[in-house]
């Protein structure tokens, strides 16, 4: 039974993605970490589909399509920001703050 190792690996990958989002400051790297999270979930779905039937595998296709749409919009937004600041580091995102 390969289920538990696959679930463990996807949990580790997901945690790595979360840690990356929280620790890194570059918008593109953060975006890549979000993609890592989504793909870790895909791995979970595929692993579960072994015992639970096709539903999980179908879900993976939906997630891939959504991730592609998010990438298209997200990279366009990052580009728009880069044109203003010549940087994609979140340290330079300081226009909006309390006060």
């Amino acid at each position, binding site marked *: 039974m390969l289920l538990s190792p696959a679930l463990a690996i996807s949990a580790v990958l997901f945690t790595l993605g979360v840690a990356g989002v929280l620790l890194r400051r570059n918008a593109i790297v953060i975006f890549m970490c979000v993609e890592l999270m989504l793909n870790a979930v895909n791995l979970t779905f595929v692993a579960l589909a072994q015992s639970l039937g096709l539903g999980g595998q179908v879900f993976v296709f939906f997630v891939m399509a959504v991730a592609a749409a998010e990438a298209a919009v997200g990279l366009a937004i990052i580009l*728009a920001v880069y044109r203003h600041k010549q940087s994609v580091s979140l340290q330079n995102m300081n226009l*909006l703050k309390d006060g």
Partner: protein
Amino acid sequence: MNLNPAIPRDLLLSLLPELVLTGWALVLLLFVAWRHRTVWDLRIAGWLTLLALVSTAVAIWWLWWNRAGVRGVVSMIAADDFRWVADWVFVGAAALTVLISFTYLERERLLAPEYHVLLLLGTLGMMLMAAGADLIVIFLALELMSVAVYVLAGFDRRRARSAEAALKYFLLGAFASGFLLYGIALVYGATGTTNLVLIGARLSIAMRASAMLLAGLALLIVGFGFKIAAVPFHMWAPDVYDGAPTPVTAFMATGVKAAAFAALFRVMYQAFAAVPAWHDIMWWLAVITMIGGNLFALGQRSLKRMLAYSSVAHAGYLLVAVTAGGVAGTSAFLVYIVAYTLMSLGAFAVLIAKGRAGESDVTIDDLSGLAARRPWLAFALAVCMLSLLGFPGTAGFIGKWYILIAATSAGQNTLAAILVLTSVVSAGYYLPVIMAMYMKPEPIEAAHVDVCLDRWGRAAVAAVVVGLLLFGVWPNRLFDLARAAGDSVHAGGTTTAAP
């Protein structure tokens, strides 16, 4: 009219409003590809958008009138009164947003009619979220809505603030989607299905919840917490609301929040009614959201930021309705979300009339003496502020009162007390707006000369004020509608009151 989703005709009928809206969105997209240069193209696109929303509302009304419902069959799409009422809120919020956008887009030189297409697609995502009876549908609908709103938040891309807001919204929104999705995956693993009703049925016969299920549930709550901007997950909200173009902020604060709450209600009460663990989490979320949102709002100078934090605080009040649960909690949520949508959109509409270039620099003192120069506009803002505060005679009071009844009848007296106390605190930032308008003189001569709304904006503000005062003194019809909708969500499911 009982619909059986296994029959294609019935399936299409149950999706009629969404299909109408999709058709309109595609037609508008074609139109925009053809005409997208002049002010008139923008105006025609806006009118077409209004037409689209009206025909969608008619389709919803038709289904509601014929009592269309999917009963006794497991389906990915729910058709019940809860969905129709929530749909009306989304369509209404979108229509008011279009009305206040006309003047804004032309003034800020945002001559891109794609704005309206994105607005329609975002509304479509909201409607599907309220309709989803399956976690797949809810996830796809959430993404449809979110991706459209990411673009809208950065629509004024020539301003750095708008681009920055879009980036923050996108990164945190995608992050939250990751949590939500992992939660869905774990719930799927623990129960073997993604259908809400089937999950509910399987959990009600299970002896005890597995660790996988609890982890999935916690991740789902984190994902929803980001979307509704509950307090530990709210840090994106003030920045994004501040930087986005103001009509988009109004749309996000009302429609997006309402849709996330509608999906939250359905997921929690149709799938996880048998798992009591989430009630405690919701209780704490509600408490810290009410306290945190109101305290942060007290410290804001910018009116737009103050409204952003106030929307966080209102998410806390709505979470009280979620915690209270049952038919009373669900109908209280619907009554409150109608009132909240109206008063919040009205406040943003007046802000659009006063502000320029993103409105982030309008402070409360800038409104000094507005009542003398623009009495009707000041009156409208005063009504919205009193309603947000929960003053008797306005819809906001009725909504809060109904949430309080739901909370106390579910035994949540502490929560009800905190709601009342934090509402008192909120007077500390709502009332200064009214005092500035009515009791202070104009800071400089002719400070409010350029304050104006076009006739569409005025129609929107008038509709808001009439709605707030009407529901404030005669809420009976709204109550009946909300109660029927609350019943429909819990019918057949294992309804439990909060512990």
